[in-house]
């Protein structure tokens, strides 16, 4: 343990909660979710309805992602939880603590060491490998929702591949702003079939979905939908031939690690509004600064 990781000590102190099944959910519920996940993997990008349970965290705070994590976690897994790319944001701490308590699994902040990574709003900068599963928390799984409010209609549109209207929105952006003005939750086509919402990750992360060696699972608890991108699946961000998809770039470098190709958070550091930019992925930033120090922590 080292002083740079304020969570490590209290994390280890978290006692295993008794009176609950391994990873909170009962085995029957987990089996139901696993069946849904198998279907989701078999039909990449298709939203599978599932009997989402009430979790002891509020809807909208990651209950979908937590249910998927609970369904796939095994005793040997090493769990990492990030929110906004960071391991130490309150909600990430809270969810990591939940699984440390209810499943007693080992937790880590180091991306390469994790076998299951639950995330809200980011994909880690460190490339994932084939032994890892990334679980996304999804608020609104339906990419067509803001064009068509009715679920009956959007399901028909998916079934018929009736997606012209998605490009109407992009056309309108270009006509109005000269650019596609969607910067996060940027819709993608999965395996040349379903249009999918990649959850509110910045479009910066979209290319990481394409041909990823890691399995990507998406869970929306309130909306009771789950979907998946299996390893090595084609994921294409919607665009026009003459206005191709492009990711954000910063003129600044990370104030800590100097990275110029990672996603940067902007901090306002004084009353005059002076700004600093730092990596949103805290582990990536840490690794670049101290590449040799081991950081594994254990939840129990």
């Amino acid at each position, binding site marked *: 343990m080292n002083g740079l990781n*304020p*969570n490590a000590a*209290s*994390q280890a102190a978290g006692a295993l909660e008794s009176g*609950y099944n391994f990873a909170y959910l*009962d085995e029957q519920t987990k089996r139901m979710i696993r069946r849904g996940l198998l279907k989701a993997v078999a039909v990449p990008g298709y939203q599978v*309805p*599932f*009997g*989402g*349970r*009430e*979790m*002891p965290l*509020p*809807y*909208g*705070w990651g209950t979908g992602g937590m249910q998927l994590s609970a369904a796939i976690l095994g005793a040997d897994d090493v769990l990492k939880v990030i*929110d*906004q*790319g*960071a391991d*130490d*944001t*309150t*909600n990430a*701490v*809270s969810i990591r*603590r939940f699984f440390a308590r209810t499943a007693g699994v080992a937790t880590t902040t180091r991306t390469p060491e994790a076998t299951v990574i639950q995330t809200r*709003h*980011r994909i880690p900068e460190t490339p994932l490998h084939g032994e890892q599963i990334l679980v996304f928390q999804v*608020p609104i799984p339906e990419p067509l929702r803001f064009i068509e*409010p*009715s*679920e*009956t209609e959007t399901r028909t549109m998916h079934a018929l591949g009736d997606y012209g209207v998605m490009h109407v929105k992009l056309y309108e952006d270009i006509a109005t*702003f*000269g*650019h596609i*003005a969607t*910067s*996060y*939750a940027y819709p993608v086509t999965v395996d040349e079939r379903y249009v999918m919402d990649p959850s*509110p*990750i*910045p*479009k*910066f992360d979209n290319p990481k979905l394409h041909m990823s060696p890691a399995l990507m699972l998406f869970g929306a608890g*309130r909306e009771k*939908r789950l979907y998946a991108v299996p390893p090595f699946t084609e994921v294409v961000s919607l665009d026009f031939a003459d206005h191709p998809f492009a990711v*954000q770039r*910063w003129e600044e470098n990370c104030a800590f690690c100097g990275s110029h190709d990672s*996603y*940067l*958070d*902007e*901090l306002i*550091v004084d009353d005059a509004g002076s700004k600093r930019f*730092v990596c*949103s992925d805290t582990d990536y930033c840490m690794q670049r600064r101290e590449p040799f120090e081991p950081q594994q922590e254990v939840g129990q």
Partner: protein
Amino acid sequence: MYVAVKGGERAIDNAHLLLAKMRRGDTSIPELTVEQVRQQMPLAVARVMSEGSLYDSELAALAIKQAAGDLMEAIFLLRAYRTTLPRFGSSLPLDTTQMLLSRRISATFKDLPGGQLLGPTFDYTHRLLDFALLAEGEHPGPQVDATAQLESCPRVLDLLAAEGLLARERPSAAEVPDMTREPLDFPTSRAQRLQALARGDEGFLLALGYSTQRGYGRNHPFAGEIRIGEVEVWIEPEELGFAVPLGDIEITECEMVNQFVGGKGIEPQFTRGYGLAFGYAERKAMGMALVDRSLRAGEYAEEVEGPAQQEEFVLMHCDNVEAAGFVSHLKLPHYVDFQSELELIRKLRKQAEAPMQAAAQENRA
């Protein structure tokens, strides 16, 4: 300072301690017991049981205490507990004609078999603050006639139905759907709709019911009957082959009678909206009955013109645990998405400024 902008485990722990302190208030005042809440706030307990979908007044009272009186939080606590409980079957349909009534009123008939029974109600109280309650004291109930006999109380709407003036509801032999196990699938069955409404937020259903009265999908309702009382719950375990009583629960049932002019091969007749809630919960049951009827627009080939008639709109937004969760998640950090938007706005502004600057330079030249 980087770490300072993020939260941490210690912050969470301290927040919990502060919350406990806020809940307890001044420690020189005796602590509220769960039994006191259960006995003296029965209407709050009823609401938490209904919308928490669990009939357990002690746990509901505990949830209210733990939530420091925030009923939605208490409902959430009860739901999160309920989800961990095993499910061992569904009861037989409640026979509300056999209720032990504490209140029963009909706005459609002046007198009827069994009579009108006003019972405990806020109706006809003058809403004047009762300063006597500032002091503690005894509050004796009315005199009770110990020799009174139970009268049979048939349901008002059944009387209309017997005459053929009310659309018949067909009993369904289908298995009872469980919306807490299977997600809603549109279009829904009436059983699913009633389930969702029974768990639905009282305020939301009240407002939607009110909107139908004001013309957004008007359906001319009359409060056919409201009855409150205790009813026996029976269950038929598969291995037994016959039904056994589980116990009594207190419920509020409301049946609205709604006008229907007929059409599409159906004769003019009355139709029904149904509301049911745990405990004494008249407002909830009435709101639910109004919305149940308005959601039957499709069944009666009525024009869908108000929000209360739109199945998806009503059912997807009536759950306060879902709604409160998703609204409150706005408090979670959104740095990354906000950064994306910042970057985009700056880019667009730069682009808009560029031609203006070019024009300004040209003017100077």
